[in-house]
């Protein structure tokens, strides 16, 4: 929508002219309703109100009065010059001399704070701000280059950015050496890491083993408890998520996502910090040879992110395989397609085949037997292409296209190829 406010002098004139036959309609169109006439100066200098002029007729034909001001907003906006930017009302917090440090090592996947990281920072804030007399500061330790500029909003008081090449890739030993150095120099009161696979879960356990602290893992809740040594009690998942262990919060904690609310009401300084001593150089025993190019077609169904799945309705199998290749999707199939010999058995999706967890599941010509739908219940987005608008797969789908699957796939392939072409030309 355009931001420029257009005026229509004719309509304004009609709005002023109460005797104009279109007066009411135009008033309504302008969003004023009868509001103009609800309040006026009477002949005796007294303010007169017309209570009947308030409100608007709701969809059920009942008059509604909305006192929140939302309905009036267009009117107000018209006068005040349209949109208002909401003022940043977050409290700015700066902690000059913290009583202690809560060290957080966020995962930073893709160079940004993940929601898990933000939750963890929220948890760190709880620990830091618990005692207003003795306020602590949240220290974020970030490895490698990043693209995040919202550390302050996420609740970071101090930012220790170790931007050296040695931290690129999978370098747990180097990172551990850095954390040990921080432990020695800054001695944080708490260490918080996300209990996330290959991120904090790995590093946090290494750290705990190194500094000989018994960590709490899988923490999802903390409560104040004076009987505990550090004043906090935590609830952690144990036994592969089947038990809850209540224990005193130790110095090192690995927390699950949603362990706390992310910071939203305050802004923090995110003051950069550096270690006084250079990190000792490290002889790595683990060498990262880089990510392996994985052919999406070879990815196991259970792990695949994007599945293009074929059913009984697919007739053009060459086209289907071609589409899977162009889209970079892992191929799946319904039971019938497998039984008919068009697809191998290990590509069968469903309760009797493989249960899949794809982010996007594109089902082509699959009507959606109950077993099949069971197998895709944890897929985030399901797209269906089918000729039959009444089939169960369409009911399940987030987006359904009714039509000939071969044609739709071909069109999609053309579209993707064309977009790639354009991108290449632009680059």
């Amino acid at each position, binding site marked *: 929508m355009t931001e420029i406010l257009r005026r229509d002098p004719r309509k304004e004139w009609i709005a002023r002219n109460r005797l104009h036959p279109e007066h009411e309609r135009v008033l309504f169109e302008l969003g004023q309703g009868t509001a103009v006439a609800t309040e006026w100066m009477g002949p005796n200098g007294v303010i007169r109100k017309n209570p009947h002029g308030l409100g608007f007729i709701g969809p059920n034909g009942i008059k509604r009065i909305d006192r*929140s001001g939302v309905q009036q907003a267009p009117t107000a906006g018209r006068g005040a010059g349209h949109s208002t930017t909401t003022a940043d009302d977050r409290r700015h917090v700066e902690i000059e001399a913290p009583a202690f440090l809560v060290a957080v090592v966020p995962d930073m996947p893709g160079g940004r704070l993940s929601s898990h990281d933000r939750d963890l920072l929220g948890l760190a804030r709880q620990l830091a701000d618990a005692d207003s007399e003795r306020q602590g500061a949240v220290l974020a330790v970030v490895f490698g280059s990043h693209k995040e500029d919202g550390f302050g909003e996420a609740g970071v008081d101090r930012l220790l950015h170790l931007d050296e090449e040695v931290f690129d890739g*999978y370098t747990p030993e180097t990172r551990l*050496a850095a954390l040990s150095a921080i432990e020695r120099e800054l001695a944080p009161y708490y260490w918080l890491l996300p209990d996330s*696979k*290959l991120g904090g*879960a*790995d590093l946090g*356990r*290494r750290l705990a*083993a190194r500094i000989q602290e*018994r960590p709490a*893992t*899988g923490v*999802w809740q903390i409560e104040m408890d004076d009987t505990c040594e550090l004043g906090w009690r935590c609830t952690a*998942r*144990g*036994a*592969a998520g*089947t*038990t*809850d*262990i*209540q*224990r005193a919060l130790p110095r090192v904690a690995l927390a699950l996502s*949603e362990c706390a609310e992310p910071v*939203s009401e305050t802004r923090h300084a995110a003051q950069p910090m550096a270690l006084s001593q250079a990190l000792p150089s*490290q*002889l790595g*025993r*683990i*060498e990262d*040879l*880089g*990510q*392996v190019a*994985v052919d999406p077609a070879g990815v*196991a169904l259970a792990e695949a*992110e*994007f599945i293009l799945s074929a059913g009984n309705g697919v007739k053009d199998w060459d086209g289907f395989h071609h589409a899977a290749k162009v*889209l*970079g*999707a892992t191929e799946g199939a319904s039971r019938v397609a497998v039984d008919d010999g068009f697809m191998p058995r290990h590509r069968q999706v469903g309760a009797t085949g493989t249960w899949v967890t794809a*982010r*996007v599941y*594109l089902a082509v010509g699959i009507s959606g037997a109950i077993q099949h739908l069971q197998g895709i219940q944890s897929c985030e*987005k399901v*797209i269906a292409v089918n000729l039959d*608008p009444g089939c169960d797969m369409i009911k399940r789908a*987030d*987006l*359904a*296209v*009714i*039509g*000939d699957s071969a044609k*739709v*796939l071909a*069109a999609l392939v053309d*579209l*993707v190829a064309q977009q790639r072409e354009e991108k290449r030309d632009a680059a």
Partner: protein
Amino acid sequence: MQPEAQAPDAQARGALEVAVLVSIGRHPLTGRARRADQDARGVELAMSLDKSRITLVHAGVLDEESEGALRGYLGMGFQALTLVEQPPGADVIPALASALSEAKPQLVITGERAEQGEGSGLLPYLLAERLGWPMVSGLANVEKVENGVATLLQALPRGQRRRLQVRLPAIVTVDGAASAARQSAYGPARRGEMRLAEAPAVFDEASNDWTVQAARKRPKRLKIVKAASARDRFKAAAAKAEGGGGQVLSDVTPEQGAEAIYKLLKEEAVLR
């Protein structure tokens, strides 16, 4: 860091010595003792290695329930399993560390975490720290072992893999993406031998103060709406969850349909 505990000279002798640490699993629904899923995958991984000599090691209690579970590992085709007997409630790390430093395997494989007890997943890290060996987590496969260096494939989310090299001896843990364990056969399981080994028991004192109960369902996070007016807050709280039937495009040309699909694929960023 600490100097390596031992030089990797064993590969000269030919066979690769592999120890797999196995634990008693617990079925997530019935709580029955079983082969722990990841440990069993670890055993499978060890069996897939060329020219390896595999020792299965368990530290813990020997009773009827645990024996059944341990025999599950034997049923994968082993003659014996080393059982370091420990009383209930013991900290098994010292016992395992001494067993491993005695046996001197080149490669120690284990699951990421136990299916019962604390299940913190710390054991491989503590063992690595104690023995001074490198430790790599979340493996999908071991590609090869040559000249005391193992080439590993680490499982990343969504079927992605990362190739790593690590100097042996090392401890590695196995991810759920590693190939599934083979069936445990009744015959070898019944015949397999439990070789008992002694180790001093160190009790885990700290865990006495913990209260353990069945996992509660975690509360679903509510969308907190910071709104000025009560009306907005009410609206947010009473809002129906999104969803409830997707978009259905009928009577569209294939191109329009493809356009809509393309848009969604773009939004979900699955197109590369």
